[in-house]
């Protein structure tokens, strides 16, 4: 950090979600969604950690545990967390494909953007349907 020369050079480098270079908006939206779901999962994991700690320890944390497990809002939050996991996971697969130089042309990029959008929704619905059937 400390070095002024390094700092000056760092200032000149582009930052990563480089809004000015994006055009096709679906690929841009999916790039942003990867970051947003990542940050959202951070929060979601914090909430679930409190839930698990409450379930294990009892005491005052039980209140949160009960709210998350049986309330509508708690259910919605867990639903959103599972969606975020799937969406972010598919975003990760997209990055892994790109690392290997695959699907980098225009059609490929668009295909992957659509696949992560609809795939994320689809896998989430599939999970909850299977869960409902499995009981």
């Amino acid at each position, binding site marked *: 950090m400390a070095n002024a020369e390094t700092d000056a050079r760092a200032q000149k480098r582009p930052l990563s979600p480089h809004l000015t270079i994006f055009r096709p908006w679906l690929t841009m939206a999916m790039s942003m969604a990867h970051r947003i779901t990542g940050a959202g999962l*951070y929060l979601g994991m914090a909430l679930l950690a409190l839930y698990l700690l409450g379930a294990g320890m009892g005491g005052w944390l039980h209140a949160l545990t009960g709210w998350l497990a049986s309330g509508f809002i708690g259910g919605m939050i867990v639903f959103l967390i599972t969606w975020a*996991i799937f969406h972010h996971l598919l975003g990760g697969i997209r990055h892994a494909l790109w690392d290997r130089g695959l699907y980098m042309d225009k059609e490929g990029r668009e295909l992957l953007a659509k696949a992560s959008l609809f795939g994320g929704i689809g896998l989430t619905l599939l999970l909850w349907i299977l869960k409902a059937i499995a009981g």
Partner: protein
Amino acid sequence: MSIPTHFNSGRSGQGAAYVSDHEGSEHARFMRLSSYALAPLGVLSAWWLAGLVGETLEGAKAEIGRPFPAIVLICFAIIGMIHARQGMTEIIEDYVHDAALKEKALHWNRIGSIAIAAAWTFGIMLIAAPK
């Protein structure tokens, strides 16, 4: 160690992109490697987490207290939060430019990520411990 890619590195030539004098490529490589572990862990964890909804406390504890779910969920949280800390570091470095604020944000990110993984792991260990 390097991961084969199709890209050229200015430093090392074809196929070895993860080389840099700075921490950036180490960081990117870690995000990739951790994501390979997180993908299967994430699918399994999503399944058991979804199972918590609408469950009584006793039912939820019985479900995630079994050895396999407990171990998978703990691995997901520990690898996931190391990954999330690295990811959040990247986000902070991108958006927070005030030096003092950035230090503070990075500091709380370190503490927060460890606290989350610890609370999660501790909770599951309490649930899964033989009574």
